[in-house]
């Protein structure tokens, strides 16, 4: 599976570490925080995700991956 890094180009996913689906950085209150941290959308289909290019430039990228086909949008 190939991941596109804006600095380094299209690379095998093994060069990255996976940061999960894109979430908000904070919640307005304690109650909604539980949902933000634990209840993931787990979409079947295109999903926005965070990937860290560990073996390359060591920066994060947000991208869209289709969880059904495991393809990353170019």
């Amino acid at each position, binding site marked *: 599976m190939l991941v596109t890094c804006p600095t*380094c180009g299209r690379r*095998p996913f*093994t060069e990255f570490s996976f940061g999960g689906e894109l979430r908000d950085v904070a919640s307005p209150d304690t109650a909604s925080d539980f949902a933000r941290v634990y209840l993931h959308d787990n979409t079947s289909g295109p999903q926005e995700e965070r990937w860290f290019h*560990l*073996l*390359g*430039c*060591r*920066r994060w990228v947000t991208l869209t991956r289709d969880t059904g086909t495991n393809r990353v949008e170019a």
Partner: protein
Amino acid sequence: MPEVRERPLGVIVCAADPPALDRLVAPGHGARMLRVAPDELMAVAKRDVIDDVRREIHDRITVLDDDALVVDDSDGWTAIALTGPDADRALSYLSALQPPAADDLVQGDVARVAAKIVREPDGLLVLVPAYWGEHLRTRAIEDAGGMAR
């Protein structure tokens, strides 16, 4: 059969705002500027001029970004040179990465560790964090240097 040799280098790392790095003029002294990330630049030069390189980069970048960081990272990297006409093929034994064109920087997995590859007039230069230096040296000699064809 390529030659595999460790090459001592001076390295300066500059962390600054992307627009500032875009406008930074190279310092001279034969320094090679590698833009490893939008907000980070690595300058590679001979050890004996690295202090001058650092000073020049510092003076130039702080005008464009006053809290930019410029540090000497020379001890933090091991550079392995693959020299000779077979250098590109030697790399294919260590990495799935395509070797860089003339002035480009390629970053990615070489022998399973995070590496940066640049092209030199006599071949390829592979840089890894110094704690992986021994690993890369051994792999390069065994896998690439020992090429049968």
